[in-house]
């Protein structure tokens, strides 16, 4: 147990060392501290995983954090099957991305700051996944959000970057508000915040209703939906998805680590962790499934037409996260986590490849200015191609197994919305394959469309960047092999492994049906690739013609369904209006002045006499105080 403490605290130590000594002593050696620390926690994590594989789970309290009366919250760690998978994902991706960053961020003036933030993030994320109670989870939840805020705005000189940071922060407030209330509700219901006693007692909740702001609501549904609010914010689901694409303003390794592999999946992790609560409420489950499916479709369609290389991958992330929620919503938590795990590898790889491309293109993001990069950067091309095959669900690669399991369980599971979300999921699989290969073909194939100067500088990235790509590439290929379904002669080890925590959902269907579902999804994926090849590999401007023909659809997709504009119109502008006209009005004393100037006019002939009177602030303050006293007395007397 004690050695497990190293898992989160090594990165924390690295953070402190870098932030304190980084500026003066360590400077451009900062990566060594962080990389060693995170590699250390990777090693310990692997030991932990080995223990868990032998069936030894840990649930231990380090010390009591807060007590009051009979209520106690400890700082403690729960290392079980679910946590160990998350540990693999977080520490592996984090280590590789740390190494990659040493090349990518080389020469940046905030070098040591970047690594200290990255370490702090790793610490927070590890605290989040290893927590054994909701309060510690909440701590990790807020802390990763803060790190994300700082890292998105890392290049604060760029206004767009700091705006994106703010946006991520504000949008997440909405989700976290619900999450916070949900945690309070759990505390009130169970009198504790520790997972094990809560999940042991959930059945007592069945049928209870609670008076929430005047309405009688089913308790499990309420709690589950409140928790899901938090997940929607953190994992960028509809309607709070708007922050993630903008978050791409941050450095690319950040996008890979935080906004693809780890932090954004925290929502899925939390829903899976709370599966005993969610499973009690069919309503909440259906909401999760539908939100996931709709988000998956919605984001995939937007991804079809974008030209910004990172944003396409960001929409792809939103879409794949939707997939994971879809899985959780139909009860296939194991499949959802399986997809989380495989997705982390191929999506981190996609981002890092995009970073590598940007590195070569001097920061260029526009697909239309790329092309033909294949011959300049073979490794990047190769690895990105494999990652795209994996996300497209080509058989044998990681993405195939997890996606297939989700689709099969959605189709065959007991969920009433299962067939619907299966259909949506299959369409999404087609769209995903299409936009992923559109990206590949536009970037690496054809002729180079950028300026001569850019062409002159094209080069493969240094080894420190390409080696992590290759390692992740192995993950994108092989990480799915732990979960080969029995239909294909595998043992479905992954789901079996997760069974103690997440339960096991049996699909009810014949082998024939299972073959059919698999075949449909493979065909969908392959035809997506084929269509992309047909449109973008041939000479000619088929894409432009289609765009021309479906101008309206293209416009809507290009503008991301106008969601940002809608929010701007219904939320941002009214808020600013109120702040400007009401709040500033009060601070500036305009309202007070209005009364001061208004009342004399009513009184007529006195007004001229009064106009000359100077308004002293102190008088105003005293008058406000007196009125306040009057209000309080009136309330006390008349309540």
């Amino acid at each position, binding site marked *: 147990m004690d050695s497990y403490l190293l898992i989160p605290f090594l990165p924390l130590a690295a953070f402190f060392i870098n932030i304190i000594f980084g500026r003066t002593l360590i400077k451009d050696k900062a990566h060594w501290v962080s990389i060693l620390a995170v590699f250390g926690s990777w090693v310990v994590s692997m030991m932990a995983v080995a223990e868990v594989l032998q069936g030894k789970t840990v649930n231990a309290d380090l010390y009591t954090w807060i007590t*009051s009366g009979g209520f106690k919250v400890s700082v403690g760690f729960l290392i079980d099957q679910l946590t160990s998978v998350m540990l693999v994902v977080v520490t592996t991706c984090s280590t590789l991305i740390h190494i990659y960053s040493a090349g990518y961020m080389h020469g940046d003036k905030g070098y040591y700051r970047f690594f200290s933030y990255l370490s702090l993030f790793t610490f927070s994320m590890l605290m989040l996944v290893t927590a054994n109670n909701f309060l510690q989870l909440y701590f990790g939840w807020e802390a990763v959000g803060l790190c994300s805020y700082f890292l998105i705005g890392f290049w604060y000189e760029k206004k767009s970057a700091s705006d994106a940071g703010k946006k991520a922060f504000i949008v997440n407030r909405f989700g976290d508000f619900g999450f916070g209330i949900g945690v309070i509700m759990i505390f009130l219901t169970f009198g504790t915040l520790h997972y094990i006693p809560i999940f042991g007692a959930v059945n007592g909740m069945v049928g209870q209703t609670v008076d929430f702001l005047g309405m009688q609501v089913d308790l499990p549904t309420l709690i589950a939906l409140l928790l899901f609010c938090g997940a929607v914010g953190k994992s960028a689901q509809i309607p709070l998805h708007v922050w993630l694409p903008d978050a791409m303003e941050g450095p690319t390794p950040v996008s890979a680590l935080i906004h693809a592999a780890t932090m954004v999946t925290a929502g899925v992790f939390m829903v899976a962790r709370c599966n005993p609560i969610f499973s009690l409420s069919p309503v909440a489950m259906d909401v999760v499934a539908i939100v996931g499916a709709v988000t998956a479709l919605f984001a995939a369609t937007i991804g079809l037409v974008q030209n910004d290389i990172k944003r396409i991958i960001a929409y792809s992330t939103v879409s794949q996260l939707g997939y994971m929620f879809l899985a959780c919503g139909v009860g296939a938590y194991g499949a959802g986590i399986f997809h989380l795990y495989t997705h982390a590898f191929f999506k981190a790889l996609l981002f890092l490849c995009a970073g590598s491309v940007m590195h070569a293109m001097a920061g260029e993001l526009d697909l239309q200015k790329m092309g033909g990069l294949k011959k300049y950067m073979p490794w990047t091309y190769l690895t990105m191609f494999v990652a795209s095959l994996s996300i497209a669900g080509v058989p044998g690669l990681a993405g195939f197994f997890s996606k297939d399991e989700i689709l099969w369980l959605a189709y065959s599971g007991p969920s009433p919305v299962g067939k619907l979300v299966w259909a949506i999921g299959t369409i999404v699989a087609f769209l995903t394959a299409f936009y992923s290969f559109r990206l590949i073909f536009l970037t690496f194939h054809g002729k180079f469309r950028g300026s001569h100067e850019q062409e002159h500088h094209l080069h493969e990235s240094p080894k420190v960047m390409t080696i992590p790509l290759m390692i992740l590439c192995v993950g994108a290929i092989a990480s799915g092999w732990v979960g080969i379904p029995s239909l294909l002669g595998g043992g479905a080890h992954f789901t079996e492994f997760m069974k103690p925590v997440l339960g096991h959902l049996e699909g009810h269907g014949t082998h024939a049906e299972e073959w059919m579902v698999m075949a449909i999804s493979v065909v969908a994926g392959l035809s997506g690739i084929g269509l992309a090849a047909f449109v973008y590999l041939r000479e000619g401007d088929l894409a432009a013609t289609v765009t021309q023909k479906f101008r309206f659809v293209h416009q809507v997709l290009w503008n991301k369904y106008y969601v940002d504009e809608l929010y701007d119109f219904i939320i941002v502008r009214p808020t600013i209006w109120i702040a400007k006209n009401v709040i500033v009005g009060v601070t500036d004393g305009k309202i007070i002045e209005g009364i001061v100037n208004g009342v004399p006019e009513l009184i007529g002939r006195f007004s001229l006499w009064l106009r000359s009177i100077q308004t002293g602030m102190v008088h105003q303050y005293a008058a406000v*105080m007196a009125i306040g006293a009057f209000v309080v007395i009136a309330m*006390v007397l008349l309540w």
Partner: protein
Amino acid sequence: MTLNDLAPLIPLMVIAVSSVIIMLGIAFYRSRAFSGLLTLAGIAVAFITLFGVQGTRQVTSLLILDDYALFYIGLILAASFVVALLSSDYLEGRRENIEEFYILLLLSTLGSSVLAASTHFVSFFIGLEILSVSLYALIAYTRNELNIEAGVKYLVLAAASSAFLLFGIALLYGETGTMEFSRMSSGISAQGINKGMLLTGFALVLTGVGFKLAVAPFHMWTPDVYEGAPAPVTAFVATVSKGGVFALLLRYFIQVDMHAYPSLFGAVAFIAVASMFAGNLLALLQKNIKRILAYSSIAHLGYLLVAFLAGGVMRVTAVTFYLVAYFITTLGAFGVVTMLSGKERDADAVEDYQGLFRHRPWLALIFSAMLFSLAGIPLTAGFIGKFYIVAAGAGSALWLLVIMLVINSAIGLYYYLRIIVVLYAQPGHSEVSAVSSLPLTGSLVLVLLTVLLLWLGVYPEPLIEMIHRMTMRF
């Protein structure tokens, strides 16, 4: 009354006597260091003598030295100690005659301590006046235009609030025939509750107290005075003066059971919500650090009132812990402002902090820690405090208030983070950031406060245990 009665008052007397010694000392030997040392020694001795007070000692009907009072007096003394340390370097070179500052500081500490131990309206009022009158002079101490303006504003408004308070006390006395807190509740039930007058009396007392606590709608003075006063004095106003008054408010409304008056409860809830929103929304639009901290303190007192409204055993613990966290954080934040302030003016513009991390990384880290605590980010004392308040509120099913609190914390987070981002940005061109070297004592104090802040955030258990023990009587 016998000599025996005086024994428990020794801590208070030590403070009073030290102020007189310093005054006499100045007549013979003017030295900042000497007066400063005497002050620190006086506060330290007073603090130590607190431990000599055995059991609960009622001294006449006016003061009670129970564990609760001792805890709060200890807190007040500790805060004054920090302010005394911070102010010495600050005042050097700003004006001559620094030494009298310490006399005023000690006496206002005395006033605040008296409040924490009061069980009677007379001691309450005298304590309040000792506190206020010394504050008038302290706020205007360096005598520049802003100081004087702030001092006069505070003088006029505090006098007005005292008038409300006195009128309220008169009404309560007229109704119950006593000014003792403990007999007041029995007086109320004996006389048959004549509600109108009693409630008006409560409301007026609340007005007077609300002014001192700077809760909406009695908060109007706060930003001006915070901005105008010298930075260490601002720290003092924000902590010591509010702490004593809040201790008294809590004691009074526990003895005169507030929950028996639903309308009074409603009025306090209104004040709490109004303070949270007024503080946080107005802070959003501010560009001056001292004013931001002023508005944030308004909001924080609003949060405190939520815990104050909660019933049950959690109430006193929650309030007290939050106050401790608030003290540490506020002293730390104003400590940073004090350290950065040049001779010409205080470092209170947000631009003064731009890129602070580049040339003063330690100070920037400390300031970030303080802001994180104000925002209630986990691992800081502020988070535990807020957690207790939410738990206390939720435990008493004050849902609306808890939701308001959560919303407001979210709003608050935004402006705290805005400052933090500025700290780590590219350095701007501000003359203030070029202060040559930081004084050693101040730096040590700040480091100590930060360590305390994190310690309480990570391992609050011992303090909570202690608070629980000290406040068990309620």
